[in-house]
Structure formats: structure tokens, C-alpha cells
């Protein structure tokens, strides 16, 4: 550790605290203050608006399915990446990081091109068979899955690598088949990484805006999620409802952070 003189240390601390305060703490606190500017009126009003309730339910539903799907695929792809050698492995690993670097709006647009019902690649075929993807829930779940894809994988891969395959080999030599080895050995040893990835995915899925806005069509009361609702209400001069919905989203995010903070020490 390099020794830094006391005034420099204090200056650095002040700079860091001020930065986080003006960028994060103050704006978020203002949203909370605005929510409660008339006591509980804003919250009550929001919960009495069927469109808001609908948007919250839709958000939870989309986030739930996106997290379930991402967890299943995430764990499977992680095992594939760590335990097996196959041509194109590096390419797959690189592709998984694409959602981190591509703007969600672009993701939405890309999905629209492939799945829209008029001239998309699969869209017309799927719609002819009664499955509407774009401007409906499946498309919104897909868009959310896309943006949250790397979160579970990037948590699980390092843990799997670190644990190694010694225990799995031991289980095999003791008579366990592939399924038994997965449930009894592999999954318990990556448990915390999976939980951590799920929490991060959930937070990301609840807050998704750009990709969902494009594929959902943003139809109030039908395909409008909570984040889209905040934007619409704000532009409609219903700031109170917008603040209240924002407050609920902040609350869930903070709950996720608390869960992560509680889990972290157990997950070395």
C-alpha cells in the first residue's frame, strides 16, 4: 500500500462521495421525495389506476419468465463452455457478451426484423400458427432474455472453472450417472453463483426499457411494462403516478441489492 498524505486522502474521499451523491443518491432521493410529496396520495392513486396495476403485473410476468429461461439456458451453456471442448466454443463465448455491448434499442429492432408478422423471417409463419411474437408477451420476454443473457453465465462460468471436475469424476467413479452427478454434485457447488446470477438478472429484467419498448408496441393496458408506463405517465403530465411507479421500481432494485449483499459473504 502506498502511503498517501492526509489532505490528499480526504480530498479523494470527498470527490468520490460527491460524485456518487450528485449522480445517484440525490436524484433517487428526489424521486422518493416527489412520490411522498402529498403523503400516500400518489401511491394510492397509482394503485387505483388499472393501467398501472396491469403494467406492474406484466413487468413481473415478463421478468419472471425471462429469469427462468435465462437461468436454465445460462447454467446449461456455462457447463457446455467449461466442461466440453467443441469447435466454435470461443465464438459462442464471445457471442454471449454481445448483449452487454449492444444497445437494447438495437436488440429490439433486430428482433422486430426477424419476428414481425408482416415481412419478418419467422414472423408470418409463427403468426399463421397462432403465435404472435412482436407486439405481444413472447416478444417482450425474448427481448428481456436477450439483454439479461450474460448475467447468469458470467457468474456461473468462473465458479465452475474454479471448482474443477474432480468432484464430478469422483461421483462418476462411485456409480452416479450424468443426471445424478449434476443434481447432487455440480448444482450444489455452483448454487451461490446461480442465485447471485438470478438476482442480477431479475434486477436487469425489471428495469429493461429500450428493447421492450420497440417489440411491445407500448399499448397502454396491454403491452406496457412499468418502465414504459413511467415514461408515458410523465409525458402525460401525470407526474405523481410516474413518481410512484418509479419508487416501486427503486424499491425492488434495492431489495435485489440487499439480497446480493446478504449472499455475497457466503459466496467466496
Amino acid at each position, binding site marked *: 500500500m502506498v502511503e498517501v498524505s492526509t489532505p490528499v486522502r480526504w480530498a479523494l474521499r470527498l470527490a468520490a462521495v460527491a460524485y456518487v451523491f450528485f449522480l445517484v443518491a440525490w436524484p433517487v432521493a428526489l424521486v422518493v421525495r416527489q412520490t411522498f410529496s402529498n403523503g400516500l396520495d400518489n401511491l394510492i392513486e397509482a394503485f387505483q389506476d388499472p393501467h398501472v396495476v396491469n403494467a406492474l403485473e406484466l413487468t413481473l410476468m415478463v421478468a419472471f419468465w425471462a429469469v427462468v429461461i435465462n437461468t436454465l439456458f445460462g447454467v446449461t451453456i456455462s457447463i457446455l463452455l467449461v466442461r466440453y471442448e467443441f469447435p466454435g466454443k470461443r465464438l459462442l463465448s464471445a457471442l454471449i457478451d454481445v448483449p452487454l455491448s449492444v444497445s437494447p434499442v438495437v436488440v429490439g429492432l433486430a428482433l422486430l426484423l426477424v419476428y414481425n408478422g408482416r415481412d419478418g423471417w419467422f414472423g408470418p409463419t409463427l403468426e399463421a400458427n397462432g403465435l404472435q411474437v412482436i407486439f405481444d408477451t413472447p416478444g417482450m420476454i425474448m427481448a428481456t432474455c436477450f439483454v439479461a443473457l450474460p448475467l447468469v453465465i458470467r457468474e456461473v462460468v468462473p465458479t465452475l472453472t474454479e471448482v474443477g471436475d474432480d*468432484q464430478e*469424476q*469422483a461421483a462418476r*467413479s*462411485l*456409480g*452416479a450417472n450424468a443426471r445424478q452427478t449434476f443434481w447432487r454434485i455440480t448444482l450444489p*457447488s455452483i448454487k451461490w453463483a446461480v442465485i447471485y446470477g438470478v438476482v442480477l438478472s431479475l434486477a436487469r429484467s425489471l428495469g429493461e426499457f429500450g428493447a421492450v419498448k420497440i417489440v411491445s408496441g407500448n399499448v397502454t393496458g396491454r403491452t406496457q411494462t412499468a418502465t414504459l408506463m413511467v415514461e408515458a405517465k410523465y409525458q402525460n403530465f401525470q407526474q405523481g403516478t410516474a413518481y410512484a411507479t418509479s419508487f416501486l421500481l427503486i424499491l425492488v432494485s434495492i431489495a435485489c441489492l440487499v439480497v446480493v449483499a446478504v449472499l455475497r459473504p457466503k459466496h467466496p
Partner: protein
Amino acid sequence: MSIDVSGVTKTFGDFVALDDVSVSLPTGQLTALLGPSGGGKSTLLRVIAGLETADTGRVTIEGVDATRLPPQKRNVGFVFQHYAVFKHMTVAKNVAFGLEIRKRPKAEIAARVDELLRLVHLSQFSHRLPSQLSGGQRQRMALARALAVEPKVLLLDEPFGALDAKVRKELRDWLRRLHDEVHVTTVFVTHDQEEAMEVADEIVVINDGRVEQVGTPDQLYDEPANDFVMSFLGEVTTLGGVLLRPHDVHISTTPQLAGAAEGTVSRVLRVGFEVRVNVLTDDGEDVLLVLTRTHARQLGIEPGVRVWVTPASGALTVPSMKAAVG
């Protein structure tokens, strides 16, 4: 024969780990696969266990062709160098794993785990997690876990390699006694010739993916098949173009025996009761000898003294393949 390996070849890319290896390991014995690191002995053990698949060749375990069987169908117990303990399970759960997989009745599992933990002296630790055990205790637990499923053969991959010298010595003796009690056909891999000589009934020397020699410790020591086996099993030195053990060199300060090489003591190093002497002969050979402290003192060995060296009568010698060191 309990394990029959015939014509097994295994390559990893360009590297030939096993080159047409054939060996038979008898039932009920304790066999060591001995050789230098990277020589292919661990690969052979893993091929027998089914953790690696041979490119060509056959593996037969107790008369059953196991070449294409997955590890869980071979009924072998495997003990890993780094223990491979199930970190999230207690000691008792670790040992019970194989039995639970086989869906044995609960009472039977409990009784068997109890018996095995007593066998490996870990009864009082049954409710601990592996992270609360020492290295030696973890390895004993891993052994109990492998024995729990009553394997036809027990395979140990450098089982004591990760332990410190004292614990390694203890576990070595303990493994020998355990084998005398349990009588399961056991094969263990080691690069430590002392460990192999002390513990094994039979030793298979493996080098460069090939079997160099198979035999009892005495056979290997007394009748090494070639200079590799000779030099791997103990220290050697060259004298007059032959390999021999440093303690088999006769030294005198006067020309007593015909054909003795004359030379000068170049270096004397005392290690405990042993004295290690380097003699540079007039023919340019650097000969290493080991004497007792008393013997060296009687002869008055010190650097610069003129001496005569020759293989002692009855000494084992093997023609040296390498040119004498200049």
C-alpha cells in the same frame, strides 16, 4: 488376473501418453505403477477407471470387458491426488454417496458408513465438513468413500502426493495394513520409488508411455531390466563404463584389488551418518560413493587424497547406455 490391459494406446494431440501398453495385474495384490512425471502412469490408471478412453486396446476387469463401459458401470473405487472430496457434504455423507446412489436401505448405509469410518479412524469426525479436516484425514475419508461401494479394484492416483513427508509416511504404512485387512485388488500410482518399494507387492515401471519392467520390489532392485529401471529405483553412479549403486563401490587408500581405478577425492559431503564422496578417476570418470561416517574416518577420506575404487564383490552392475561423464 484381476485387471488385464492389452495393447492400449492413448494420445493427447501429438503427445503419446501410452504406447501399446499391455500389463496384467493379479487379484488381491497391491500393485504400484511407478515412473517419472509425464510417463503415462496416471493415464493408464484413468483408462482402467474409465475416466479416459483408450484410442486402441482393451481393458478387462475381473473377466468383464470394460473397454467401452462408462466409469459408473466398472465398479472401481478411485482415489484422487487432491482428494476430490464433496465439499458441501459432511464426512458421513461423502462416504455414504456411492451407497445412496445405489439406493441401499437407510439402516444398511448407516451401518456401513459407521464401519468404514472406524476403519479409517474418522468416527469422531463424521458430522464435520471436509474443510474442517487435515489433508491426511481428507484422503482417508476419500479412501473410505471409495471402499464403501465394495469395488472390485481400488485405484489410487498419487494418493499421498499432496501431503507432507511425515503424514505421507504414516499413510503409506496405514495403506499397507489396510490392504492386508481388506484384500481388495489395489493399484496405486506414484513417482516415489521408496513408496513403491515399501508398500507394493508388485511394481510396474512405466516410462515414456511404455512398460519398462514388471516385478516384485526385490526383483526390480536386484535384476533391473535396463539402465532406466536401475537408475529410477535408486541412486546410481558410473565406474568403468557400468552403472552401480554408490554404496556398492569399494574404496581403499592403497592399491589392494586388481583392476581398481586410481583417482583423487574431489569432494566430501556429510549427511547425518552418511558420507558422500566424489572421486575423480585418472580416466576422467566422476564416481560417487556412499560410506558410513565411521568407515570414512577409518580411511581418512578427505579432498585431495589418492584412492583406488572398484565395484565391490557381489555388486549389481548394469552396462551404462550413456557415455561416461567427463
